């Protein structure tokens, strides 16, 4: 890690997430940096999502992939991570790798030359065509890194696209978030084309011990730890 990057990250030390005996740095981009492993964890990139609608006659702007990859590049640069661990739904569809635009394909290839890719599969990309992957999970320092959040053991996962909705002083706001309960952590969706779901909603039923929630909401310029008692179900809960 470069000097500059180190100081930036050290300044945020108070906002680190302690989980499974390790210390993590949540980034405004939605990525999670793991200093001990020198790895960047991301979930739900959903690459080549908007372009995948073209076959059905919906010619949506094909720039989401480039936006996601550019943010990834910047995160890798800033953290100095040597490894990228992508926790599934990295492509929106199995045939995503075939539909990559040339510029995006090249950027991804350059990235893979610089850092090690640990490519876990998800439900959208169980078998990404022509793309080397590592199956449904990998283990690191006793932690299971996988797509689907399941209880049992210490797990870091994605899949659910968590968002928190809080109300305070009469104002309410809804943002993507990192969330864990000491046993299971779910990362926010990283892809530029993704939406999000309220962590108090039905999709999260049974995932967490709600009495022990640790929630970090992503603001414009920083990540905010918020009190779980401020969470509201809001309209989609």
């Amino acid at each position, binding site marked *: 890690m470069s000097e500059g990057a180190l100081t930036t990250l050290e300044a945020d030390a108070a906002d680190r997430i302690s989980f499974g005996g390790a210390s993590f740095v949540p980034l405004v981009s939605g990525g999670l940096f793991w200093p001990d492993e020198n790895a960047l964890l991301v979930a739900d990139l959903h690459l080549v*999502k*908007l*372009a995948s*609608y*073209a*076959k059905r*006659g*919906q*010619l*949506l*702007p*094909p*720039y*989401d992939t*480039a*936006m996601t990859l550019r943010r990834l590049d910047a995160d890798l640069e800033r953290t100095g991570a040597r490894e990228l661990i992508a926790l599934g739904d990295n492509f929106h569809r199995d045939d995503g790798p075939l539909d990559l*635009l040339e*510029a995006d394909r090249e950027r991804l290839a350059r990235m893979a030359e610089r850092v090690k890719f640990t490519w876990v599969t998800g439900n959208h990309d169980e078998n990404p065509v022509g793309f080397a992957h590592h199956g449904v999970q990998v283990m690191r320092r006793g932690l299971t890194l996988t797509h689907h959040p399941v209880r049992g053991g210490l797990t870091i996962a994605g899949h659910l696209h968590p968002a928190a909705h*809080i*109300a*305070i*002083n009469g*104002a*309410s*706001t809804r*943002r993507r978030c990192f969330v864990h309960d000491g046993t299971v952590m779910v990362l926010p969706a990283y892809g*530029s*084309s*993704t*939406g999000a779901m309220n962590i108090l909603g039905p999709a999260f039923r049974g995932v967490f011990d709600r009495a022990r929630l640790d929630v970090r*909401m992503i*603001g*414009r*310029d920083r990540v*905010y*730890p*918020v*009190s779980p008692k*401020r969470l*509201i*179900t*809001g*309209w*989609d*809960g």
Partner: protein
Amino acid sequence: MPLHPRLAQWFSERGWSPRAHQLGVLAADEDRASALVIAPTGAGKTLAGFLPTLNALADAPPAGLHTLYISPLKALAVDVARNLEAPISEAGLPIRVEGRTGDTPASRRARQRLDPPHILLTTPEQLALLLSHSNAPEFFGSIKRVVLDELHSLVTSKRGELLSLGVARIARLAPEMRITALSATVAHPHVLRDWIAAPLPGVEARLIALKGGAAPDIAILDSVERVPWSGHSAQYAVPELYAIIKRHRTVLLFVNTRSQAEMLFQSLWDANEDGLPIGLHHGSLAVEQRRRVEAAMAEGRLRAVVCTSTLDLGIDWGDVDLVVQIGAPKGSSRMLQRIGRANHRLDEPSRALFVPSNRFEVLECEAALLAVKAGEQDSEDPVSGGFDVLAQHILGMACADAFEPEALYAEIRGAWPYRDLSRLDFDRVVDFVSTGGYALRAYERYAKLRKMPDGRFRIAHPAIAQQYRLNIGTIVEEPMVRVRLVRGRGFKSGRTTGPIGRGGRVLGEMEEYFFTTLTPGDTFLFGSEVVAFEGMVENEAMVSRAVAKDPKIPSYMGGRFPLSTFLAEGVRRLVATPESWPLLPDQVADWLRLQRDVSLLPQPDSLLVETFPRGAQNYLVCYPFEGRLAHQTLGMLLTRRLERARARPLGFVASDYSFAIWGLADMGGLIRTGRLSLDELFDEDMLGDDLEAWLDESALMRRTFRNCAIIAGLIERRHPGKEKTGRQITVSSDVIYDVLYQHEPDHVLIEATRRDAARGLLDIERLGDMLKRIKRHIVHKPLDRISPLAVPILLDIGKEPVFGEARDSALTAAADELIREAMNR
């Protein structure tokens, strides 16, 4: 051309004779001219529109479509069909008349395409649909006349843009066709005449204007009660309104928003000791319920209907003897239309009553009264054409047949809204339709249009035509959810968990957006009941009956027309001219006198800016009278500038008349000591970079983009029942906007969005005009306390949406609280 003997006989048997404007249309038709008929309601405009057709087809009409009638309302098409039946059957004319709307059975619609009637009555959307079929040249080729009803209301919207393109196509398929347009009185009739002349160059378009009949008899409610300082409910007037309803046969009570309709209906119902039949009509109620009210009204079974603009146009109800406008009239033309709903007979005066719901509205009612009496018009002019509607039309034309770009471009320029379209923009839109129009040429192999060797464009696949037909039209509904009544879970007792009950009756529909602002347990008025929000279950909003003194009011989108520029001038003049105050109720005149004594009166050609402290905060209030939308935009931009000037603004609130910004710094002091220059603060250059910077983050752009993207065919419409099949797109339009805006801010759809936002929600033009007008004429009045004129806007804080940086600040507050909690452990 003389009237056909059978028609002449029909007139004389009824003791009638054709009126001058009806004969005028007949003469225009004989001279092969188009005609614009401008006449008030009740003048027999419809018959004028059809007289040349009846006359021409009275003997052995040839097969094929002769006259196409287009109206903005389905119901109007049905009603006109019924009205035409009378002369046709009574005069024994061999003419076939049929209607065609979205409700017409598919079998009949298919038959109509093969075997058209002589007269077809339809809507702009159905016209677009018919034109997209390959048999359009045969179907439309025989047309001699196109009748456009209520044209004044169509041309101010995107439906008018679509209609203009359809009419331009008919003009090419049937060059002999002539247009007869029917319109209410408008501010600039010649613009409307240009609109119908554009598709038929070289053909005269004759203006046939009928001066209005008896002048309307209008009064402002002279209440014994105190007129409130602010608010829109007119609660104070309910007992008087009830007494008025009792004295009349049938009263139409117009309000400006659906939530006002709900509230007024509720209070009238509470006051209804005699159990009078009173109805409620607005756009959120279930369709069946609205139809029941309309039917009861037509049969004369109702004594009063509380309604919104949903009843502005439409079917004639002879029995209405009083129209009441509750709340701000907003515009003179709008009032003339509404007042025309009373007594649809030309020779008798319509009767109307204005009921202001607050003090500023008293001034507005007075200005409107003077304008209406003088017959002044302030209707909106037709709008120029957008790229989104153009994209839809171009795809439709490709569905009908391969098109030659040069010819299609020339044809489109014949539509008045697109008269200035550049070839470059036309080509950009064709490219958008074909491949999405992205600088990154990613979709050549999925192109919807293919260029043929002869240079023409055709659709790549028949499925594209099917897709087009499902997405036709320019009316984009806000995403709506059904509101269903279920058994409550008892929020009062603090139990907010447990399953939500199922089943129960559907109360109506409401914008999905509204529910994003609610938290379970919140209460609001809906369908005249107080209900509590329980939660969303599969795209339905579950609510339960609730008892609450202070229900949140549905903040429906739309329905809030801004104060017209014309009436704004009237209000400014009234305020600045003490000689006219005797016209006003004493309490309002006293209020203005007090303002003159303790502060200043706003003058027509300057801007009054008051500053004063109140509690821990400092306020800046000014009075541009430019309407809520322009004020909101101004408030947003000023807040940004004040932030830069370290005035530490916290929020602002806007009304039609004034707006207030509050903050921590002493803004009055900053201005007095020259550290804050009002001339710089209000400089026109705010419409440059500051506007751009704000648009970058503004939710308004996202909302506007969704409409453009759906109309242009980038995003498919949601079709009821199809949501779950997975065939519908599930990417949010916000995501698409963000991706496109960041990468291609000059994309044709972003340009369309920007244009719509500027003229719609932002009202940029009006704001620009005002900034020019007041340039270097800003008067600062520092005060040690609130002024009388500032009271209404400060009372609006808490009732109206307050704008400000509430988003990240809420996160900071929550985080700080967590830290405090951790430190005190």
